[in-house]
Each structure stands twice: as C-alpha cells, then as structure tokens.
C-alpha cells in the first residue's frame, strides 16, 4: 500500500495535471459549436432606473471605445445599409419580380402611387411612414423584400440595427453589442460598476452561463475523492479490513489518474466513464476468480457500441474504454488478495437446472423489453442546456448557419454567397426565419449582368422620367426623391462584392468570412423563430443540399433517429454480453437468460424512474448500457454463487457510490447518470443475484449412498 501511495503521489506531482476540456455543450461536434471567440454584451435600462435610450446608446459608445478593435458589428450599420439598398434597390430586386415592377411603372400606376403618397401627407403619422415614401415613392421595396433590409433581418425583427452596428430592442430598453475574445475581468467589472451608477445593467450572457457551471477541474477532483472514499468505506465495511481495500482503490485510482494525465482531453461526458471503469473494476474484484475474466469483459464491452455514436466524445472513447476497462480489471485483481479464503474454493460449479419458470421469465422479460422499446421517446441533450432568455434574440440554440462553397478570394466567396442567399431568401420568404448574412446585399457578376439587361428591357429611364414628371405635377419636389431616382438610373452603380467591401458595411461583412489556408467561405446564419419545430430545407445555387450547422441543426439530425439509435446500441451491447457468456459456457440458453436479466433490469429501472419524473435522456445512455452489462455480470455471478449475502450486498451498493457522487457535484450532464445508476445498480443485483438463481437453480446434487457414508 505504501508503495502504491508513493507511486500515486509521484504521479500526481509529475506533469501539468489532468487534461480536462471544460465548456458548455460537450456533446456537440466542433463544427456545430457556436463561435466562442465572440461574446455578446447586453445592456439594459434597469427597471428601477431612470436611464433613457439615448443614455443606453451613449453607454454603447463608451463600451465600443473601451473595446477598441475588439468590438464587432453585430448587425449591419443602419445608415450604411440604407444607403446601400437605396442605391441598388432596383438591381437587388429579383428577376421574378420584374413583371410586377413593370406593372408598377405604368403611367396609371405611377399616377396612383403619387396620389396615394400625397394623400398620406395629411396624416399626423406621415413622419412614421414618410421616410419610406421618400426613399421609395413607388413602393418598389415591397417587390424587393429579399434584397432590402428584410433580407438581413433588420426590419420586422425584434431589434433595430443602430447606426454603428449594434442591436437595439424595439422598445429601446435593451442593447446588444458583440466583441471578440475576452477583455480582462477587471475592465468588465469597472464598466459594469460605472454603468450601474447610470441606471444601466451590463451583462455578458456567455460569461455568466459559464460562471454558473461548476468548473470541471473542481468537479473532477471531488469526483475522484468521493468515488475513492465511497468505495474504500464500502469495501472496508464489507470485509472489515482496510489495507486491501485501500490497495484496490489506490491501484485503480492511480491508473485512472494516469489516464487523466496522459490520455484525453476529458470533457464532462468522458469523465463519468473513468469513474465507471474504476467502479466496474472493483466490482469484478469481488466476484469469484473463475468468472472474473468474464465479468471484466462484460463491463469492458459495455460502452463499446457507443464507438459508432454521433456524439464525438462517446465515439472517441468507445474502443479506448474497452482497453481501459480490461486494464482496470487487471489492476483490480490485485485486490483479490483480500478476498475471503473460501471464496474461490466454493464447491459451486455454475451448472444450472432449466425450469419452466425460467422459460416463462425469459419470454416475459424479453417481451416487456420489446414493448418498452416501442414506447421509447428519449430526450436529446437540449434539455440540459440552460435557459437562453438572456441571449434572446441571439440565443445560440435558435441560430443555425450554412457555409458557402470555398473560394480563393473574399470577393469570389461573397459572389457565391450572393447566389446562394438570394435563393434562400425566396425559399424562406413566407417563413419567420430571419436570414443574416451579406449575400442579400450583393449580386454575382453574371447575375448582375442579367438584371441590368432585364431592367434595360423595361425602359427604365423613360419610366423614371415619367415618375419625375408626375411627382412635379402633384406638387412634389422631384429633387427630394433624388436619391431613389439617381440610384435607380445610375448604370455605374452595382451591388458587387468589391464595391460592398469599400463601404462602411465592410467590417460587418468581414465578420461573416472565414479564411482557412487561403480558402474563403461565407457564413450565413438563420435565426429560427421560438416555435420552430423543423429546420429550413435549402439548396445551394448549384442544387446541392445545404448542410446546416449549430446546436439546433445537430439536435435536428439526432432527433429522428434517436429511438432507433438507443435501441440498436442497447441491442448491440446485449448481443456482446450474450456472446461473451456463450463463449464462456457454450450454452445459448444461459446466454439468453443473462441477457433477459439485463433487459429486466433496464425495464424495471425505467419504470421505477417514472414516479420520480426522470424522463429517458440520451445523456444517460452510457449509464443504461453499463447497467445492462452490470446486470449481466451480476447474473453470471448469481448463477455461480447464489448464497453469498455479503458479496451480493456489496455488489448492489457499488454503483450507488458513483451515482451519489454524480448527483452532488452539480454537473448537468452527470445528473441523468446518477438517477439511472442509483436506482438501477441495486436492481441489477436483485435480478442477477437474487431472482436469477431462483429461476435457474443449481441441479440437485446426487445423494451419496448410505453405505458409503
């Protein structure tokens, strides 16, 4: 023991400590994770405060100055966007609208539009609608919805873009800013304090959500101590000794520490696997030596089916965990040194006598398992994410994004994005999905040429002269509409990517570009409405389907296949257990019976969790698989040694140790595991070590003849 402790201390002191990867949503593949290099800042007029919207805007100016180059435009700057769309309104109008455009530019339509405009002047509310009339007297913007502000979602959405490019909620009480990376904590504290004095609260939702999470390093340390302490206490109480339990726990613990240090990185999904490997190894060390290898393999293969999982962490650890389980079980055999001397000298042979009730139980359990699988509706990981109210309307769970095809330059990439986005805009015109990206504002060269030609065929110059004439005839100053008329008539103005990158919109546009090894791609985001139950189905301009990324996109790919994935993974796990039992005993009925006891454990555990309002969750799948393997191991042990009360009690309580640890440590991903292990662990042993030997008793022993006695 002393040697092991010394080795442990040396191992812990050697190197930089465990390789842990903390972060929200560890189940997401990297490409679906929100960009954590950008942070949101939320300014809100305190309810009890007296600050005004103007002060909110001034506070945003102050933060922008403090952030300097780290500030990023969250929305396209309003004035720059208006100038751009005014200058290019007609060109940005889709070709499909040109027939309607022609109708609106007839003499009669122009006359009607100008009369209506004059009629509106008599309303006290003209100031609210007049700006639009001044910019677009013929109401042509409604024809070009996909190309104007609607396209980038600044109109009709929950926010207004400010002239600098921040986002202001329409009631003027909340403002969002975007910034890159993190400033030092002290700067934000000082800003928060300063603004609080002016009646404005400053919040950084990502930072606050991260602060709410228990740091993984703290949780890992506590998990190690709780599991080690719990196992030691349990073993010491069961065997009324300390040295050998300590040797067992320290041995497996050291191996776990070495894994933490040299393998990894370990995230919140992977760490529980390490704890389960330790507990499994300890459990294997308590069963008779002749079935220890089978028990160890049963537990080591428990999570192997997850190697084919869509969850990256599970897929990554599926096979290594098998090796880890085998290694742990090997190390744990050291603990066999403390086993009671009669343990392995048991006269039990493991032979069983097949009874009718065993067959009935087999059919009933497998049947109930089949019924349960038909009603399986597991929840995805979304239930584990915290409320996104503080992010609204920029909640990461409501934003998905698509990448345009890579190109060799920013301009070329933007041209490709323009081709894509105009199509997407048409496809989503009737939905509440907001598209956010620079593609709306641009036209690729070929498309630009097509639209110029089409506009030329409409006799635009003549129509604009007619509009000018009609405006004058109704008492309007045509010069007041000059921006529209000039923009519409100027053949040299074009909404090209090159031109856009030379306007004040450039910084916002560049936020959507990603340059990887000289290949530039454009990211276009889709803000889903809160009640969206499906993702938009879109195609690129060349007809290839669009792949969407983001938490909601990953959830959407998971959800339809979830029940079949859970069932197939469990079946593979049961098949592995059956195969191992068959290889050991060469008895298919026995293998089936072991699998049936595992199924009985899963079914009764799920039924027992119903009153506690614990829904089946994908996050708990490793615990379910491990539980099935544990039940299989318990059944193998129960059939070998039906009357070992102390060993049975110990086996039943071992899974409770990590369950309690998971429950108290406050990591959201660990809570579903705690419920399954805490309830299912003792049930597995009940089925395997108590019920199974009664259903499948040992064959009656031959009574020696009296004369021989």
């Amino acid at each position: 023991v002393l040697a092991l402790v010394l080795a442990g201390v040396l191992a812990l002191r050697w190197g930089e400590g465990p390789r842990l990867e903390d972060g929200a949503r560890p189940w997401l593949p990297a490409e679906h994770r929100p960009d954590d290099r950008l942070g949101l800042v939320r300014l809100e007029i305190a309810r009890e405060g007296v600050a005004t919207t103007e002060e909110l805007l001034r506070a945003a100016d102050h933060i922008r100055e403090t952030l300097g180059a780290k500030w990023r435009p969250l929305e396209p700057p309003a004035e720059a966007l208006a100038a751009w769309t005014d200058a290019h309104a007609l060109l940005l109008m889709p070709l499909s609208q040109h027939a309607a455009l022609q109708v609106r530019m007839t003499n009669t339509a122009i006359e009607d539009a100008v009369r209506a405009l004059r009629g509106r002047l008599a309303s006290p509310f003209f100031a609210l609608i007049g700006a639009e009339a001044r910019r677009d007297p013929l109401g042509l913007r409604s024809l070009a919805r996909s190309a104007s502000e609607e396209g980038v979602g600044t109109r009709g959405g929950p926010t207004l873009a400010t002239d600098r490019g921040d986002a202001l909620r329409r009631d003027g009480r909340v403002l969002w800013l975007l910034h890159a990376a993190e400033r030092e904590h002290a700067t934000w504290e000082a800003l928060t304090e300063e603004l609080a004095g002016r009646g404005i609260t400053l919040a950084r939702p990502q930072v606050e959500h991260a602060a709410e999470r228990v740091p993984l390093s703290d949780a890992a340390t506590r998990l190690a101590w709780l599991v080690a302490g719990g196992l030691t206490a349990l073993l010491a109480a069961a065997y009324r000794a300390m040295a050998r339990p300590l040797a067992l726990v320290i041995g497996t613990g050291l191996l776990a520490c070495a894994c933490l240090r040299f393998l990894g990185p370990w995230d919140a999904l992977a760490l529980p696997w390490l704890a389960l490997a330790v507990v499994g190894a300890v459990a294997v060390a308590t069963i008779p030596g002749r079935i220890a290898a089978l028990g160890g393999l049963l537990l080591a293969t428990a999570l192997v089916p997850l190697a084919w999982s869509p969850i990256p962490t599970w897929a990554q650890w599926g096979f290594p965990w098998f090796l880890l389980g085998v290694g742990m079980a090997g190390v744990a055999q050291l603990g066999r040194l403390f086993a009671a001397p009669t343990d392995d000298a048991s006269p039990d042979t493991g032979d069983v006598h097949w009874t009718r009730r065993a067959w009935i139980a087999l059919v009933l359990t497998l049947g109930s398992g089949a019924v349960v699988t038909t009603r399986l509706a597991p929840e995805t990981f979304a239930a584990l994410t915290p409320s996104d109210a503080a992010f609204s309307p920029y909640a990461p769970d409501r934003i998905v994004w698509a990448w345009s095809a890579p190109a060799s330059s920013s301009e070329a990439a933007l041209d490709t994005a323009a081709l894509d986005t105009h199509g997407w805009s048409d496809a989503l015109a009737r939905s509440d999905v907001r598209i956010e990206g620079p593609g709306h504002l641009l036209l690729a060269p070929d498309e630009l040429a097509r639209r110029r030609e089409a506009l030329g065929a409409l006799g635009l110059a003549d129509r604009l002269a007619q509009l000018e004439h009609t405006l004058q005839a109704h008492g309007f100053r045509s010069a007041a509409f000059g921006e529209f008329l000039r923009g519409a008539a100027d053949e040299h103005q074009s909404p090209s990517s090159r031109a856009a990158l030379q306007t004040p919109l450039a910084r916002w546009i560049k936020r959507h570009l990603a340059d990887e090894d000289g290949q530039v791609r454009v990211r276009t985001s889709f803000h889903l409405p809160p009640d969206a139950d499906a993702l938009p189905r879109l195609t690129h301009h060349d007809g290839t389907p669009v792949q969407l990324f983001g938490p909601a996109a990953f959830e959407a790919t998971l959800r339809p296949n979830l029940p079949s994935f859970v069932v197939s993974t469990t079946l593979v796990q049961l098949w592995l257990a059956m195969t191992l039992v068959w290889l050991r005993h060469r008895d298919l009925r026995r293998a089936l019976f072991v699998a049936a006891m595992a199924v009985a454990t899963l079914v009764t555990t799920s039924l027992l969790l119903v009153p506690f309002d614990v829904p089946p969750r994908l996050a708990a799948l490793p615990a379910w698989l491990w539980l099935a393997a544990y039940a299989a191991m318990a059944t193998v042990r129960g059939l070998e040694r039906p009357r070992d009360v102390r060993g049975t009690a110990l086996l039943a309580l071992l899974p409770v140790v990590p369950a309690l640890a998971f429950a108290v440590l406050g990591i959201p991903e660990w809570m579903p595991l705690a419920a399954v292990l805490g309830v299912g662990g003792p049930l597995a042993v009940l089925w395997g070590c108590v019920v199974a030997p009664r259903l499948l008793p040992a064959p009656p022993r031959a009574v020696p003849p009296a004369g021989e006695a």
Partner: protein
Amino acid sequence: MALWGFSSRWTLAHADPSRKLQNRLELWANFAGRTQNLRAQVRLRRESALLERPLAVTGTLFFRTPDALLLRDDDPAGISTWIERGVLRLVPHRADVPAPELPDRHDPASEWLVEHLVALFAPPPPGELGFPRARVLVPPGSGYRLEFAPLRGSLARRVVRTMTVQLDPVAGAVTRIVLAEAQGDRLSIDLEDHRQNLDPADIAGPFEALRSRVGG
C-alpha cells in the same frame, strides 16, 4: 397595421409647476373633462421638403370616450387616421390603394403620438392633470398654448420634435395642433366648429363605416 396599447396613468411628475402652465392645463381640462364625444371641422396644412408648396386639405375630426379618435380628410385620394383602444390604423379612402405599412406596435414615436393625440381630447382622470411621457411647457408668445415634447432620451424624439396645442381662451377647446417633425416637416391642424357631446349615434357612424371596411 400596428397594434399597441398605452398607459393611461396621469401624473404631474413632468409638468412645469408654474402657475401659467397650471392655468392652461386647467383650462384644457375644463373642456376635455366634459367631453363624451366631439366633432370638429379641421383644416390641415403640411409644410414639407417633399413639396413645392404646402399641402392644404380640409377634413373632420371625431372623438368619443374613452379613446377613439378619427381624423378624416376630404381629399378623395386621402387617408383616414383612426385610433381606437390604442390601435392605430391608416385607411386610404380609395379601396384600391393599399394601406401604408406602419411601424412595430412598440415603436416609441408611434406610441407617443397615439397616446398624446388621444389624450388631447379625452377627459383626464379626476384629480390628476399631466402627461407622464412628455415634457410640457408654455411656449413663448401670445395665446393659450401648451407645448409637448417627448422626454429627453426618448427615441420618439427621432421622429417628433414637439406638438404645440392652442386652446380656446374661453372654453378651453383645442383649436390648433402643430406637429413639428424631426425631419423638418410641420403639420398644422386647425380645429373649428366644435360640437361636443352629440348624439352618440351621430359620432358612431364614421367609426362603424371604417370598421365594416377594414374589420377590427
């Protein structure tokens, strides 16, 4: 069309405490406090950078308690401004002309204008006199006038600079409203021939006609 509600709470928090202001507010409340319904002839005049010459049209204003206001001009190609229960609608007289798109229901300027235009004609709650979301003062010059402006820092100031109201020196009725818009336009609404508390059926007609046309 946009929908919105507005607060009907009245306080003196932002009113100029001077006696002159108090006198004018009391004069205004004297007339408004008795109003169950009202009809007045109006002359509208808009001065705008869009126009070569100011636009002048006539029309009629209808009000009925608690919060229904209708301003209908006589131009066949004109528009009716209808506010009821905090909901603003702009209804072109010609059925073939589409209604203009209004801003969001929470747009501060819309909300401010709706609230204050209705409040000019509605009886103030007993014992309370004031406009909580406006800076109210007596502008320099002659006549019984009150000037309302959105509070400092309000986004409504980006659209409305001031609303100046002239009162009848004897009865206290609103005889002129001048709206100075932030873009430089100026709308004057002269009210005359005030008919207060008519038979409700006479007032209901124009509202019902609009309701039957656009619903709501």
